[in-house]
């Protein structure tokens, strides 16, 4: 993989001028039904960055990500991927998407390899899967540590393993940009560690990552920049908030109501 990446690129909160934006969201507005969910969101992710999108339930973080991949239409504003306007963007194999799911299973049994193979279709399209494609699928399964279970049915997996399958599926196209919607939801600590390791390898290879998180957890050290949304607006764009980090340490019991959590966080940030 000959990925271009300036290893010297400063990992700073502010976007270094001149570096290539992989995702650019400008003045994005979107509504679900009659409710405005995004109210003028600006978000730029440059090559090699790892950006976490944080916020309480209903803050618009998932909608923002879904808008980026064209699954939620904008009522106003612009989106560009790799410098191409979203409407004209066709190079989907450059993107690996992990949707918000708790399961990788469907109504019919499927093996891990079968599910992960569907991630390779962005390269194979309507054609057959070549030897190279199959090798890439196997490699993606290895990356998430499920190599010895490739022929197992996904329905026999635990919650964390389901997430690993979904991530392997996203990695199968060898993407330059990973977009993940709550990849750590319902994942046990052991799997969180494996997911963090997988992500670390990807980041080291130069992959750009945008991920929606409820709390930072095991991947906190990987994150360059955190963007916090509240009520469809960006309220913080910079280093990961400290309060979030401590609060998300393993062992911290997440029992307090979100409203209180939210006011505390914004108090520190704004």
């Amino acid at each position: 993989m000959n990925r271009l990446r300036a290893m010297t690129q400063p990992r700073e909160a502010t976007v270094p001028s001149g570096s290539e934006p992989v995702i650019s969201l400008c003045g994005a507005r979107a509504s679900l039904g009659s409710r405005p969910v995004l109210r003028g969101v600006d978000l730029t992710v440059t090559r090699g960055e790892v950006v976490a999108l944080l916020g309480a339930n209903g803050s618009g973080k998932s909608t923002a990500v879904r808008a980026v991949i064209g699954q939620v239409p904008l009522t106003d504003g612009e989106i560009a991927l790799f410098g191409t306007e979203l409407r004209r963007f066709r190079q989907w194999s450059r993107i690996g998407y992990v949707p918000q799911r708790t399961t990788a299973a469907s109504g019919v049994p499927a093996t891990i390899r079968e599910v992960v193979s569907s991630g390779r279709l962005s390269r194979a399209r309507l054609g057959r899967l070549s030897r190279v494609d199959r090798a890439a699928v196997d490699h993606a399964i290895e990356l998430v540590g499920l190599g010895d279970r490739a022929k197992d049915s996904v329905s026999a997996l635990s919650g964390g393993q389901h997430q690993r399958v979904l991530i392997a599926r996203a990695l199968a196209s060898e993407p330059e940009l990973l977009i993940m919607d709550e990849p750590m939801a319902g994942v046990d600590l052991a799997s969180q560690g494996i997911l963090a390791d997988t992500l670390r390898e990807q980041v080291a290879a130069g992959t750009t990552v945008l991920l929606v998180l409820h709390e930072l957890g095991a991947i906190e050290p990987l994150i360059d920049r955190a963007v916090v949304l509240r009520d469809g607006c960006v309220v913080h764009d910079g280093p990961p908030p400290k309060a979030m980090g401590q609060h998300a340490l393993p062992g911290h019991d997440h029992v307090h109501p979100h409203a209180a959590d939210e006011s505390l966080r914004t108090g520190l940030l704004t």
Partner: protein
Amino acid sequence: MEILETAFMQRALIAALLVGITAPAIGIYLVQRRQALLGDGIGHVAMTGVGLGFLLSTNPIWMATLVSIIGAIAMELIRTYGKTRGDIALAMLFYGGMAGGVLLINLSDTGSTANLSSFLFGSLSTVSDADLTAIAALAALVMLVSVGLRRQLFAVSQDEDFARVTGLPVRALNLLIAVTAAVTVSVAMRVVGLLLVSALMVVPVAAAQQITRSFKATFALAVGIGVTVAVAGTSTSYYQDVPPGATIVLLAIAVFIALTALATPLARRRARAAEADMDRPECGSELPGMRQPGGDVRV
């Protein structure tokens, strides 16, 4: 064999064979996307096509194909763009289709409710050469789609959101599944009847997945079960005076029950093995960061 000597029985067996192959082949995608009853809905809509065929004195199979394709596209569009009451819209389509069929067939000179009943429950003995040609052509089309595009249809049926981000033409593939299902209904209508069509799309798949772990194996086994019950049911109806459609469906359900009974101890053993497997990471004292990829769960 005596059964193979009469021309109508030859046609009947060929028709049954084709239906046994095609119905589960497209049905598996419907089951996968949890739309198992879509075939049933299309079957109802196809009745209007049959009625129209009688009224216009054309071959009811082609008319049923046309109308059920239109109905299937309408259902898919309702599913995609429909707001909260999609189920109501679908109900209108189902019952409208059925009522339309009954009305049209009574308006025609050649048709009667007795004729309609042969389409509702299947009537293999009346399969003509023209019917067989139509069935064979449509079956070839269904297999071309369901086997040729299996990876794409699998991806779309497994996770539509994800498939869209891989750049697959999701809307076109969804419509293709709906249209292919509609064509299958027309293929199967003469054999099992419009009211039982859906059973042959769903039951063999449900039976197969009791003992399979992969999509590929489920597909192959479902088609195998489909062919077996379709041919066995048709043959039975030759020796015994039983309706073929109903016999085929009951045989399929018997296979489902048998495989479920077979699979239960198997599944229990698998679950026990998986449980024993999952105990390890929970009891271990390792911290997440210390784990190596691939180091946790092994079979």
